């Protein structure tokens, strides 16, 4: 168990490309932190620098307060878990889990003890004598985790460990890894490009883009208070609706105008826009699909935030429906309760919940007010 601290970390390649820029992060002992972002954002490079597989160009990496920049990967007391099962086909489950320890010349008694303990945690004690070929996908994945657990590392590094699995198994293993973290009480640094994985697993999430940290927050805060349009769009599925709007003031009311439609803002948001001089300027309105309502009660409640459009597409998902429509040339999605009387081409009214509207600066794409 250990804390990990990254101070002003840079990774620059000889050709002049900077893969990671001024990365600063304090990871607490026993924390489950997720690095998430699109491909090429620098998340795997960061993980590999923590592992020692990539040299750090500048900055300091501390594990448990100890500077480890120049310490060999094998001496950092960390374990990596990859997407491949990486099990040895000629060995039994026990031998697979024991193999790494055997190579490290761990005494046999200790190996037996650790393997049995890891098997107990993973609930695979009954499989220890089985051949790898006789295991299901989920069981194999557990054995692969077991191989890392027996090493009793200070920190677990997981690089997209579930991306090779089918959707059902991925969901199952997600839960398994969360439970495992609770049982082991160890520090986990997890890399994924999948925002659902990040949201469901991390106690904190680091969103990255182009080698820069965009935001570090808990899943809920990230969802509710994104710092810019990238984070707002990346987190959440379907993604947040964005539309360019003009800020108008009429009397005490401040409205966002999109063509002939307007959204009247609550006082708090209006005040911020006014304070920062956005009146008569263009901003970007962001609203999550679940805050674009079709029920009459909302239409009535937010009567000065109602828009009307024809339905482009309806997706019936069972527990909910997604309605796709276009507003002044911009695509919108509304997530509503499941209904079967929604037809493409029908004109519908939607109420945008003004309390839940996010407003971004059009040029910088940074948040003005959440």
């Amino acid at each position, binding site marked *: 168990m250990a804390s990990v601290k990254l101070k002003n970390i840079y990774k620059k390649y000889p050709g*002049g490309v900077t893969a990671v820029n001024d990365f600063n992060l304090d990871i607490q002992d026993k924390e489950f932190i997720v690095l998430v972002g699109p491909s090429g954002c620098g998340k795997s490079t960061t993980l590999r620098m923590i592992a020692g*597989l990539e040299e750090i160009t500048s900055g300091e990496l501390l594990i448990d307060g100890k500077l480890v920049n120049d310490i060999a990967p094998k001496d950092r007391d960390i374990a990596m878990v990859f997407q491949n099962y990486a099990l*040895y086909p000629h060995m039994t489950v026990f031998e697979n889990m024991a193999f790494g320890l055997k190579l490290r010349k761990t005494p046999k008694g200790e190996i037996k003890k650790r393997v049995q303990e890891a098997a107990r945690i993973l609930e695979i004690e009954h499989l220890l004598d089985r051949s790898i070929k006789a295991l299901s996908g989920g069981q194999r994945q557990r054995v692969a985790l077991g191989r890392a657990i027996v090493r009793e590392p200070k920190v677990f590094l997981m690089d997209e460990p579930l991306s090779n699995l089918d959707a059902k198994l991925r969901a199952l293993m997600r839960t398994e890894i969360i439970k495992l973290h609770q049982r082991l009480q160890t520090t986990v640094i997890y890399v994924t490009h999948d925002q659902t994985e990040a949201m469901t697993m991390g106690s904190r999430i680091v969103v990255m883009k182009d080698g820069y940290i965009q935001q570090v927050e808990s899943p809920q805060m990230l969802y509710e208070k994104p710092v810019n349009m990238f984070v707002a769009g990346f987190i959440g599925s379907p993604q947040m609706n964005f539309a360019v709007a003009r800020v108008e003031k009429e009397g005490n009311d401040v409205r966002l105008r999109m063509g002939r439609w307007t959204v009247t803002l609550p006082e708090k948001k209006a005040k911020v826009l006014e304070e920062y001089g956005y009146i008569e300027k263009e901003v970007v309105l962001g609203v999550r699909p679940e805050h674009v309502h079709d029920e009459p009660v909302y239409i009535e409640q937010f009567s000065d935030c109602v828009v009307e459009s024809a339905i482009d597409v309806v997706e019936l998902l069972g527990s909910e429906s997604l309605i796709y429509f276009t507003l002044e040339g911009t695509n919108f999605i509304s997530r509503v309760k499941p209904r079967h009387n929604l037809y493409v081409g029908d004109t519908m009214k939607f109420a945008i919940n003004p309390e839940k509207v996010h407003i971004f600066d059009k040029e910088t794409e940074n948040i003005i007010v959440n």
Partner: protein
Amino acid sequence: MLNKENRNQLDKISSILCCDFGVADVEGRVCYSGSSNITEGDIISVPRAGEEVFEEYDIVEQNGMNFAYYNMDDSEPVWFFLSVEGDDKESGKRLLELALCAYDNRREVRSRRKAEFFRSLVTEGYSAVDVNDFNMYVGELSPDIVGYTIIIVSLITSSYDPANLAVVEEFLAGIFPSKEGYCVIPADDERLCIICPLTEENGFEQLLENADLISDTVLSELMISVSVAVGVAVNNIKSIDAAFKSAEKADVIGKMFEMSGKSFVYDKLGLSRLVYGMPKETCLAFLKETLGPSILEDKSWFVRPGGQEDEIKKTIKTFLDTNQNISETSRELYIHRNTLVYRLDKFNKMTGLDCTKFEDGMKVGMAMLVLQYLSKMQNKDNKN
């Protein structure tokens, strides 16, 4: 459990010891005896593990006999046993230690000779090895084998350290065991080579699955980065050098074209292999014809060492990799589909090629490979 070579070594040690000396499995069945008092196949009382776990070289005295726990070549644990006449237990123990030492030394020498033999066979070919050695080492292989291939495991520059090679060798010998017919040997200071037997049950495709696991496994267990290349399958071990050469080539081509996947397989190099064989002049002529002369003058189109790709080039590559799928490409690059369409249009204006059309897409894909090849060759020339 004991092959002819093991027995020869034990015979030599036994002839010097002149006492009851032999080897039994962990159940007590005697598998070698150098004394007329004990017959092979007899069951003798050996120490039992129970709660206690034995380590290799542990020496235990039981019923007047000394036992040493030892792992044979194929990692099967056995008991070496030895008893001397009289009550001098200490000298019996010492003799057994000496016997183990002698056996270890002989095994080490044999193992070095064997590795040297296979290295010559693999890298220089059948004509370079001694026929007697060939009969001795290759004669041990199983008759079920229908073919062979080679996996080359190379340390990646950042992991380069001679000590790492020895660690990886020991590791690979564990997952590619000699008892299954595999042989792991150093090819040089930076590369290991695994001679892989192919059987009806475990054929080439099965082997590729195992090869795919190597890089992740070595990385997660040893924290050492390696690359993996697989050669062609050959029918006869006398032609194993052909498998080695093709694996070497796969390694070079795979790295040059930064191919995706966990291992570079000679038979799956696709167009990259074709481009690799093309003369430089032909490559340049093809680029000029396809992309136009202006692009050749624009240095940003060539990959810089460790460098990031030009935005449009990266976009085109991803677009072609995703089978010209607009939605998937924009998702992959995390850009709006309109941005993608704009970039594709821009490329069309620059080159006259419409990547959304199959024929143009194919030409551009080929041109990308050629560009990558020329860039890498140029970087290599600059380094030299």
